[in-house]
């Protein structure tokens, strides 16, 4: 795990550098769109000092550039055509830079694919001096037994979720407390290595430095869940174009993440096939007339659909809205059922809060909250991202939850395993540094 540790730590350092410079871009690589926000951090705002308030404080930065472009070369949240994706990223970054008027070198990115998988780890040590110190936290994090998640997967997040000190559990920060045994519950999130490496390489080709990589469901959860929901426990479902991400939060930490390779794109292709119309027309009809709850009025609501061979007005076809709903609804039900299975598997049922928040662009289909409530059997609301300063009106919809969440994540990242010093025997650092650390620990 040490090479992951080093890579993530390097990313952290780049992020620190970016925050010091005051400008960082966040980039959400989705299946249908790539959204880029350029953030400017208030000068002199040290986001990582201990005095900074924890939680989602979003006054520390403002959005000075925002751009969205159609995503290309991305399927199910993963890059399938490097060149195309690179062009799309260049388009988005350039437009955002132009709006911001500053050059951006550091990028924090999120992506939806990679089949994220969550592991709950726990570690247990004896506290050395009676008082829990920072090295103790590092020790206990290092003591977690890492499952064999496979060679072809990368650890994206390792979040210490819960600390337990001598039977007292639910500690957020055990440092400075007195106790004997310190144990930790850690949430390790892994993703397929290939998509991750593709994204890294893609940014390298765009002359950008990656200062952080997250899964988009995590970012969407940060933005779309209000504080109470994060505290008590809630699930955020990010209904995207090619994937639908699921993240579960409790006690302000993400404790589970998963994704379903189904999304709005599949709805569009269903309409395309079911009504025999081009993809672009299907997308248009879906966004303008789409719905999932049929009413009596919908039988009389006629929608004109273009002819696939474009016969200049002859043979114009019309369908009723209920027919369209009849195409959309089964697919949405399928997606929601798939998510329900994942939710059930995650143990979400044991949490205090049972709130489900739908976000992502597909969540804008009218009536989806009622359908989701019926399918999932829980309270459902449609979540829009938090308002952040300077965000243009066009980027405040549910589709930008991941991008906004990334911005919040960039300004107030949660402590991860690699923020703590690892004990010297676990990390293959430079010899001098190892020797220094050994001295520090023993004298």
């Amino acid at each position, binding site marked *: 795990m040490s090479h992951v540790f080093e890579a993530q730590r390097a990313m952290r350092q780049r992020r620190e550098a970016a925050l010091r410079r005051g400008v960082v871009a966040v980039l959400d690589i989705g299946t249908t769109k790539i959204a880029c926000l350029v953030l400017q951090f208030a000068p002199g705002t040290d986001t990582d000092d201990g005095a900074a308030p924890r939680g989602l404080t979003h006054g520390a930065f403002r959005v000075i550039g925002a751009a969205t472009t159609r995503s290309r070369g991305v399927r199910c949240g993963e890059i399938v055509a490097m060149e195309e994706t690179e062009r*799309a990223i*260049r*388009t988005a970054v350039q437009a955002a830079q132009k709006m911001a*008027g500053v050059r951006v070198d550091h990028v924090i990115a999120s992506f939806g694919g990679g089949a994220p998988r969550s592991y709950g780890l726990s570690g247990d040590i004896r506290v050395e001096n009676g008082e829990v110190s920072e090295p103790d936290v590092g020790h206990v994090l290092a003591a977690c037994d890492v499952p064999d998640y496979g060679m072809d997967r990368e650890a994206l997040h390792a979040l210490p979720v819960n600390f337990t000190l001598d039977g007292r559990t639910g500690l957020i920060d055990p440092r400075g407390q007195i106790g004997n045994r310190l144990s930790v519950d850690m949430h390790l999130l892994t993703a397929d290595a290939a998509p991750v490496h593709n994204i890294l390489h893609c940014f390298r080709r765009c002359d950008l430095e990656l200062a952080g990589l997250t899964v988009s469901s995590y970012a969407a959860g940060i933005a779309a869940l209000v504080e109470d929901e994060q505290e008590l426990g809630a699930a955020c479902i990010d209904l995207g174009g090619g994937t639908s991400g699921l993240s579960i939060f409790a006690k302000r930490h993400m404790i589970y993440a998963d994704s379903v390779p189904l999304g709005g794109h599949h709805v569009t292709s269903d309409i395309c096939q079911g009504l025999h119309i081009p993809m672009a027309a299907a997308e248009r009809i879906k966004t303008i007339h789409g719905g999932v709850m049929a009413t009596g009025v919908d039988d009389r609501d006629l929608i004109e659909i273009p002819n696939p061979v474009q016969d200049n007005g002859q043979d114009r076809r019309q369908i009723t809205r209920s027919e369209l709903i009849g195409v959309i609804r089964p697919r949405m039900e399928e997606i929601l059922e798939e998510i329900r299975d994942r939710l059930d598997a995650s143990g979400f049922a044991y949490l205090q809060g049972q709130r489900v928040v739908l976000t992502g662009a597909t969540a804008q289909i009218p009536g989806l909250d009622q359908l989701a409530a019926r399918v999932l059997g829980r309270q459902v609301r449609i979540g829009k991202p938090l308002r952040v300063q300077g965000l243009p009106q066009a980027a405040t919809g549910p589709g930008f939850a991941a991008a906004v969440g990334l911005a919040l994540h960039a300004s107030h990242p949660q402590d991860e395993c690699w923020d703590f010093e690892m004990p010297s025997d676990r990390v293959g650092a430079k010899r001098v540094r190892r020797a220094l650390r050994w001295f520090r620990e023993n004298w």
Partner: protein
Amino acid sequence: MLPVKAPRDPAPSRIKYRLERLWLRPAIRNSVRIGLPLAALAWMLVSLALNPVVQKGVADKAMALRNQIAAHPGLMVKELRLNGVSGPMQARIIDHLELELPVSSMDLDLGAVQRQVTALDAVASAQVRLEGAGVLGISVTERVPVLLWRRTDGALNMLDENGVFVGLAESRAERVDLPIIAGDGADKAVAEARELLALSEPIAGRLRGLVRVGERRWTLVLNTGLRILLPETGATAALARVMALHEAEDILSRELARVDMRDRRRPILQLTPESLRELRRAQGIIIEEDV
């Protein structure tokens, strides 16, 4: 009809993307926006300044402007006023200066005028100043000739008290008031010569002049042909002794050829042949061959 042409790719090319990012660097942008025009301007100015035609034109313009200013009547010097100069000297100085009056004071190099005036032998020092109202004042301190120096080639030089050449004298008759010295290097011992002359005041009427011998010692020549040979050092003391002898025994009035004072212990007198014969005869020693 389906669109045949592919829709335009909105993505920037890699070159364009890189250029745009480069352009967003403040250093690059400022240097291009401000530095480049400045550099071009500087280059243009330098190339203009190095162009000989332009250089000549600018110089001509500047010269014309300067001349226009210099021609202002308030700056014109119309009169030359010489202070402390005797009549013939005044003419010499004016001839020497060759100033074409009226001349603008801007064209006048006072330093050069001063150097020119002091370059004259008869001038010890000169002060040159613009006195206002178009007057150029030159205060001159003349060198006063105190000696005539007969050179080996026969020329008569007038020397001042420091032995500096003042001017040529046409003949002895021109300056009968001045004592005369002769011999190579006599001008370098003018001070000693003047002391000797002062000492020989009682015989001034009979003194023909002083001769510098071998550039080291003086000989006084009297008009009777009597020569007083003085030593290299202590010449004034020796002469004082001679004068004392003269006062006591009137030796210089006797028939002597020379009074040699080079031996400090005693003066050596040489008689003229006639007086020697007279002496012999008086003493009764008659030399046969003389008869």
